[in-house]
């Protein structure tokens, strides 16, 4: 991906190769960590205040730690944490990180908890190290106890990261390095910053979370890390993010004696080493909640945007499904919004039961003849309500959805299409309606849903082409940026193969166009639609799509040309009229824009159907741009029967 280049070329000094970062920490240079942890005794044994004996009195410490633990384990799923190797710890750390001030808490849990007192960032580092030998700031102490090479890693990890000293550094770690990287970063960040910056920690935390999630699908640059990552990820998921830990932690934190810390750390560490339980499942939810929380936490400035982005890509970042807000949108695992059932028109003149004509056929005929879209939609609704569903039980639904979309009623269109797609799948013939639905999702900014739907379309349409398992799974876990890359690759491969055989499947081109459009790559989308238009020059939908790609790609004049073609082919194409208005707005021709919207509205009005809210909304913007807020106030759906007032104001439609 080109992002790689961007990442490498970012202003941050972090090495482009995350692997190097990982390797670095195998070198073990904990000096920084030590400084962080506690000024006075920089030598390993941290917990014994002022004591710098090289070998910690493990037994004592452990006993103390145990005590400590016993005393506190409320809320913290210490046990489970311990049982889960590293990852659990990591998860804990994450948890900790997520909360400002939790760092302490975290430290406690994690062995290195003690260190965590300094700041949560330590925990971050710890997380990384956790794998090897969890321990953030308390590196010293841990070292003492653990004396493992990992420890070294952690330290060294910190060192290089230190330089970066930014939470984003974690991101910079790269895919594989994610697990490690993020962990290290955390540590590093903590260390590097030299201040208990929760921000860093949180960022790191997020990083870890991110990395943990997409572990499976992340493009591992560092092969060797993969296994570990998986493991950690699992552990992490298992680890419970206990919201109460903070409270508990507090108890621990105030320990003035570093010895306490150490004990706990020791104990934790021991437990970790020994236990081997599978992580409890219920924690995942908590973990995710933490994650969300973390995501919303303040972070420090990113120095390496590229890297951050990369991480965000592969992470589940951005899938903040329904975590905040009064009425969050419900979104399922694949990113598809849960919209509810289709709402039929109340006063549908076609619902007359005495009539026996086939409304479905009539609707089709009407559409063929460029008739009114609203009428056709009403016919279709009546047909459905009367049970005349067409082929496979889905045909009428899909046609209804597409008609509604053409009439610029996206919400209704989406619901109808969702129904249609579902029925088509149920009847064993998946595929119809999926492309249209993906387009609806794109229009409403449900990017992940769009990708999922496109993948489903692809598999239905080309059942012989094999799709990597990983890609399929990625749809439910990864962020939109990552899934986009995968799907695009899939489609492009097939397109190239076809090209090699001198064939071109225009549907594939259209799907590719939609993909590029969703990602904002309007130029490429334009190419795709243009290619498809060569094969189907009379397809007004394609003209509209080309027009929109041009319009959003900042070529409004050309866009207008494409829209005109569409309207010539289908004068009642409300959406195209709407788009013309939008293009006018973008050029600054507010009055013309308003006029176009009004003409679309009057078209809808005259055919007796309901008017599109989107049209009213955008009309209002146009009127405001014209500095006519008085008219803007009048531009509400209730005014649909009174469009004359606008005419009187000099708007010609």
């Amino acid at each position, binding site marked *: 991906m080109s992002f790689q280049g961007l990442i490498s070329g970012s202003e941050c000094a972090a090495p482009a190769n995350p692997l190097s970062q990982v390797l670095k920490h195998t070198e073990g240079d904990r000096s920084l960590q030590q400084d962080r942890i506690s000024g006075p005794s920089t030598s390993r044994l941290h917990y014994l205040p002022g004591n710098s004996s090289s070998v910690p009195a493990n037994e004592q410490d452990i006993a103390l730690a145990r005590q400590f633990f016993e005393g506190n384990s409320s809320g913290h799923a210490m046990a489970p944490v311990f049982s889960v190797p590293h990852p659990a710890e990591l998860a804990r750390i994450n948890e900790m990180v997520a909360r400002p001030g939790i760092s302490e808490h975290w430290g406690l849990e994690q062995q290195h908890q003690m260190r965590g007192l300094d700041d949560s960032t330590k925990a971050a580092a710890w997380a990384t190290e956790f794998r090897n030998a969890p321990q953030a700031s308390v590196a010293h102490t841990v070292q003492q106890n653990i004396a493992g090479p990992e420890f070294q890693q952690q330290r060294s990890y910190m060192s290089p990261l230190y330089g970066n000293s930014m939470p984003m550094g974690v991101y910079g770690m790269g895919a594989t390095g994610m697990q490690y990287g993020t962990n290290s970063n955390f540590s590093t960040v903590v260390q590097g910053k030299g201040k208990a910056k929760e921000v860093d920690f949180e960022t790191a935390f997020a990083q870890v979370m991110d990395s943990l999630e997409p572990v499976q699908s992340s493009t591992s640059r560092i092969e060797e890390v993969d296994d570990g990552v998986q493991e950690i990820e699992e552990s992490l998921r298992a680890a419970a993010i206990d919201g109460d830990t903070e409270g508990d932690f507090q108890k621990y934190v105030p320990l003035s004696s570093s010895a306490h810390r150490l004990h706990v750390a020791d104990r934790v560490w021991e437990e970790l080493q020994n236990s081997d339980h599978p992580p409890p499942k219920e924690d995942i939810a908590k973990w995710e909640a933490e994650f969300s929380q973390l995501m*919303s936490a303040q*972070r420090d400035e990113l120095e390496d945007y590229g890297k951050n982005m990369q991480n965000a890509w592969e992470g589940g970042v951005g899938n903040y499904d329904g975590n905040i807000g009064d*009425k969050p*949108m419900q979104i399922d695992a694949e990113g598809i919004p849960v919209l509810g059932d289709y709402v039929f028109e109340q006063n549908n003149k076609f619902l007359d039961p005495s009539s026996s004509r086939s409304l479905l056929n009539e609707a089709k005929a009407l559409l063929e003849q460029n008739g009114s879209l609203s009428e056709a939609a009403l016919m279709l609704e009546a047909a459905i309500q009367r049970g005349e569903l067409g082929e496979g039980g889905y045909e009428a639904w899909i046609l209804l959805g597409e008609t509604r979309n053409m009439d610029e009623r996206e919400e209704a269109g989406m619901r109808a299409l969702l129904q249609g797609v579902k029925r088509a799948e149920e009847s064993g013939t998946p595929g119809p309606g999926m492309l249209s639905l993906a387009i609806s999702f794109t229009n409403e900014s449900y990017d992940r849903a769009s990708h999922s739907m496109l993948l489903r379309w692809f598999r239905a349409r080309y059942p012989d082409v094999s799709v990597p398992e990983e890609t399929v799974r990625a749809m439910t876990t990864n*962020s939109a940026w990552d899934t986009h890359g995968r799907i695009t690759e899939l489609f492009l491969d097939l397109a190239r193969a076809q090209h090699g055989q001198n064939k071109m499947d225009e549907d594939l081109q259209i799907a590719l166009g939609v993909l590029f459009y969703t990602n904002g790559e309007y130029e490429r989308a334009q190419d795709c639609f243009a290619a498809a238009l060569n094969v189907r020059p009379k397809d007004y939908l394609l003209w509209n799509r080309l027009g*929109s790609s041009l319009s*959003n790609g900042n070529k409004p004049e050309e866009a207008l040309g494409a829209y005109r073609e569409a309207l010539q082919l289908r004068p009642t194409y409300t959406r195209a009229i*709407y788009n013309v208005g939008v293009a006018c707005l973008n050029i600054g021709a507010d009055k013309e824009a308003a006029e176009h919207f009004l003409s679309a509205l009057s078209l809808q009005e005259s055919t007796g159907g309901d008017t599109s809210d989107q049209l009213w909304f955008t009309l209002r913007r146009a009127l*405001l741009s014209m500095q006519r807020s008085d008219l803007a106030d009048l531009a509400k759906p209730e005014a649909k029967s009174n469009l004359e007032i606008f005419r009187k104001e000099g708007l010609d439609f």
Partner: protein
Amino acid sequence: MSDIKAPGFKSSDLISGLEAAFSKYTDAEKQAQIKKTNGIFELQVTNGAKETVIWTIDMKKTGTVYKGKAQPKADVTIILADETLVDLADGKLNGQKAFMTGKLKTKGNMMLATKLDTVLKGAKAKL
């Protein structure tokens, strides 16, 4: 509201235009936007003269725009230059590219920053 403007900032007009537009939303539209965006954006804009102004676009609770830091906490803080904001709104630059090239920095929920595009943009053509 005239007090939302900040002299010396090109993007000031843009923000006040946005504010006016938001205030004209019907409740239903506001709810729909809030549901879709679901975030509080805090914009820290710096102009050529090194002055900084902070604007908050609340698309989570109230659906308004105002000058000053976010109340309550912002979900994402976006730090960028006056020019960048103007370009973003014009569509010359998209949020993702701005971020990748370092023109836009974020603190907080980074992914939310990508939604800034849609919030700022006047109107988007429909596919």
